[in-house]
C-alpha cells in the first residue's frame, strides 16, 4: 500500500488516470522503486512523464466474490470456459483461495488426464464439485485408477465410478481398499458383487462410514430384514444406505405397520422406501377411501406397491384409482 502511495506522488494526474490492467509483478515493483528514487533525486514529482504506465494497477481489494477478479484473471476465465460454477466454489473461502493460487498449466494437464474418464461437458461440473482435485498430483491419480483396473473393474465401470463420484480420486488406494473390504465383509459379497455395487453407487463407498453403520443397524435391527435380504437390498438400492435414518424408519413404519405390507413384498419393490413419506401416505389413504387398497397379487383388483411411488398423479388416478385427478385433489384438501 505504501508503494502505491509513493506512486501517487510521483505520477502526474494524467498518468494516474490511465493506470489500469494487469497485476504489478515483483520485478516491476523493483523497477518502479528504482525509478521513484531516481525521479525524486532529479526532478519535481509533479512533472509529466512520457513513460508507459499501463502495467501499474492498484492492489486488488479484498472481496467475498471471485467475480471481482475474473475480468483480470485468465485462470478464472479458463475455468469459466470449462463451465465451472465459480459462485459455488466461493461459498467456501478457503477453497476459493486455493483455486486462485492454481496455474493454467496444472489445469491443462489435469484436463488432458481426466478427459478419458469424464465426459467433456461434465468436466466443469466435476471441478465444481471437487476443486481441490486440481491439487492432487497426476501420478497419484493414475495410481488410483490403476488400482481400479487391477481389481478387474472394466473400463466402462471405471468411467462411471470416476464421473459419478468426483471425490473418488481424492481417496488413497489403501483407504479405498479398506472400504471395499469393509463392504465385502459386512455384507458377505463376492468379488463381482462388490464391483457391481461400486459401479452402481460409487458415492456409497466413499460415504461417511458412521452413517453407513447406523443405516445398516436401522435396516437390520429396527426394520428386521434378514442378512440375505439385507444383501439383496444393498445390491438393488444402495441409495438406502445414504438416506437419513429417521426418515427411512418413518417410511418403513408407515408401509409395514399401517399398510400391513410384509417384508417379502417390500423386498420386491424397494423403491417405496426411497419415496418421501407423504407421497406414499396420501396415495394410500386415497385408495383406502375408495376401497381399492388391495396389495395382494392373488386377489382381484390388485394394485402393485410400485403404483404408490411412480408416475404423476394424473397417471396414478387413471391407471389405479380409476377416477379423475380432480377427485384426488379434492381429497388432498380434506387431510
Amino acid at each position: 500500500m505504501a508503494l502505491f502511495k509513493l506512486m501517487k506522488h510521483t505520477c502526474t494526474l494524467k498518468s494516474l488516470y490511465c493506470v489500469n490492467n494487469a497485476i504489478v509483478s515483483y520485478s516491476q515493483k523493483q523497477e518502479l522503486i528504482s525509478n521513484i528514487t531516481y525521479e525524486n533525486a532529479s526532478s519535481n514529482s509533479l512533472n509529466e512523464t512520457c513513460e508507459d504506465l499501463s502495467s501499474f494497477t492498484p492492489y486488488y481489494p479484498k472481496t467475498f466474490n471471485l467475480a471481482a477478479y475474473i475480468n483480470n484473471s485468465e485462470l478464472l476465465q479458463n475455468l469459466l470456459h470449462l463451465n465451472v460454477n465459480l459462485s459455488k466454489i466461493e461459498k467456501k473461502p478457503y477453497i476459493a483461495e486455493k483455486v486462485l493460487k492454481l496455474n493454467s498449466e496444472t489445469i491443462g494437464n489435469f484436463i488432458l488426464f481426466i478427459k478419458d474418464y469424464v465426459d467433456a461437458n461434465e468436466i466443469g461440473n466435476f471441478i465444481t464439485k471437487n476443486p481441490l482435485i486440481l491439487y492432487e498430483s497426476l501420478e497419484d491419480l493414475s495410481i488410483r485408477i490403476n488400482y481400479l483396473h487391477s481389481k478387474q473393474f472394466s473400463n466402462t465401470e471405471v468411467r462411471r465410478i470416476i464421473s459419478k463420484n468426483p471425490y473418488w480420486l481424492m481417496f488413497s488406494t489403501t483407504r479405498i481398499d479398506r472400504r471395499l473390504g469393509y463392504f465385502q465383509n459386512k455384507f458377505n459379497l463376492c468379488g463381482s458383487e462388490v464391483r457391481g455395487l461400486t459401479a452402481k453407487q460409487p458415492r456409497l463407498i466413499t460415504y461417511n462410514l458412521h452413517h453407513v453403520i447406523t443405516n445398516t443397524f436401522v435396516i437390520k435391527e429396527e426394520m428386521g430384514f434378514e442378512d440375505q435380504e439385507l444383501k439383496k437390498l444393498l445390491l438393488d438400492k444402495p441409495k438406502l444406505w445414504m438416506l437419513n435414518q429417521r426418515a427411512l424408519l418413518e417410511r418403513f413404519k408407515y408401509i409395514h405397520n399401517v399398510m400391513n405390507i410384509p417384508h417379502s413384498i417390500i423386498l420386491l419393490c424397494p423403491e417405496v422406501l426411497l419415496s418421501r413419506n407423504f407421497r406414499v401416505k396420501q396415495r394410500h389413504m386415497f385408495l383406502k377411501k375408495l376401497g381399492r387398497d388391495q396389495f395382494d397379487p392373488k386377489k382381484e383388483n390388485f394394485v402393485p406397491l410400485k403404483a404408490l411411488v411412480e408416475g404423476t398423479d394424473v397417471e396414478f388416478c387413471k391407471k389405479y384409482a380409476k377416477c379423475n385427478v380432480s377427485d384426488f385433489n379434492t381429497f388432498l384438501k380434506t387431510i
Partner: protein
Amino acid sequence: MVKFRNAAAAFKALNGLICVYKPACVPIQQIQHTILTNLCRDLNVLPDRPHEKRVEIVGPTNAPMTVKLVPNYADNPLVCGPRYIKEDFRCSWATHLGLFTSGVLLLGINQGTKLTYLINTARLTRAYKIHGQLGKATDTYFWNGKTVEKSTYGHVTREKIDKVVAHMQAAHQKTMFEMSGVHMESQTMFDLAAQGLIRPANNNLPVIYGIKCVYFNSPNITLEIQAINEYDKYLWTIIHDLGVQLKTSAHCTGVQCIRQGKFDLDIALLRKHWQLEYIIDNMDQCRRLMEEHSLILQPKSAILSV
C-alpha cells in the same frame, strides 16, 4: 395460465397474497422456504436478460489508447451466482397455523407482506374442522401426548353432544361482548348487542362464534368451529372439555382450517402446485377476491361481516 417471456417480467408480477394448503406436520417456515426456493428455481430457468458488456481502455499510456467493448465475465450466472435467490423475496404469513394444523394459509410475497399485516389486524373469522376421539385423554390434549385417562364412551349419543356443544356456544357469546371494549352495562353496549354478532377489539382472548358437531361415529367426532383469535392448543382443549362434559374423556386427532375470511379450500394451492405459474395464477384469484370484498381488510364497524 400465463406464460412469461422473461424472468424480470415474472418477478415483477410476484407481488401479492397467495393462499396455500398447509399439510399437517410441516412447519410454516418450511412451507415458506419451499415456496421461495421453488420460485427461484422456476425464475432462473426462464429466459435471462442479455449479459452486460464492459468498457476497457487499453494500450500504452504514452500513446493514443484504444477503447474496447468486451463481455463482462463477472455478469455470468456461473460467476456471480443465480439471478434470483431466496433472499430477494420478502414473505410473511397472515396468521400462524400450528405444526399439526392443516388447511388454508395466507402468505404475502413482496408487496403482499403489507396485505398480510392488514389481514392480521382485520381479524377475519376462521372456520375449523376439529377431529376428536372419545374414550382417551392425553396430557397434551392431542394424539401425540401421553395417555392419562381412559374411560367408556358407550353412553354418548349424537343428541348429548349437540346439547353440550350448544351450551358451549352460548357460554362463548359472553366473551364476545366482553372483548368489544365497551362497558357491559351501558346503552352503547345494548345498541351494539341489538345489531347481532360483534368483532373483538383486540387479540387477547379467543372468541368462538359457532360450534357444531358435523360428524359422529362413535368414538370419532368432528366439530366445526368459527372463531377469532384462536390458536391450535385452544382448539384441542375444546375437545377435551367436551369429553369431560359428556362424562367421558376425549382427545383431539386433527385440526383443519377450512376457511379464513373469504379464502376457502377451493382456491388453496396444494403442495404439488407450488410452482411459478400456479402461484401467479393463485395471486390473481386472491387479488380478484379482495377487490370484490374490499371491506374485509379495513372494516368500518364492529359488526361481524365475514
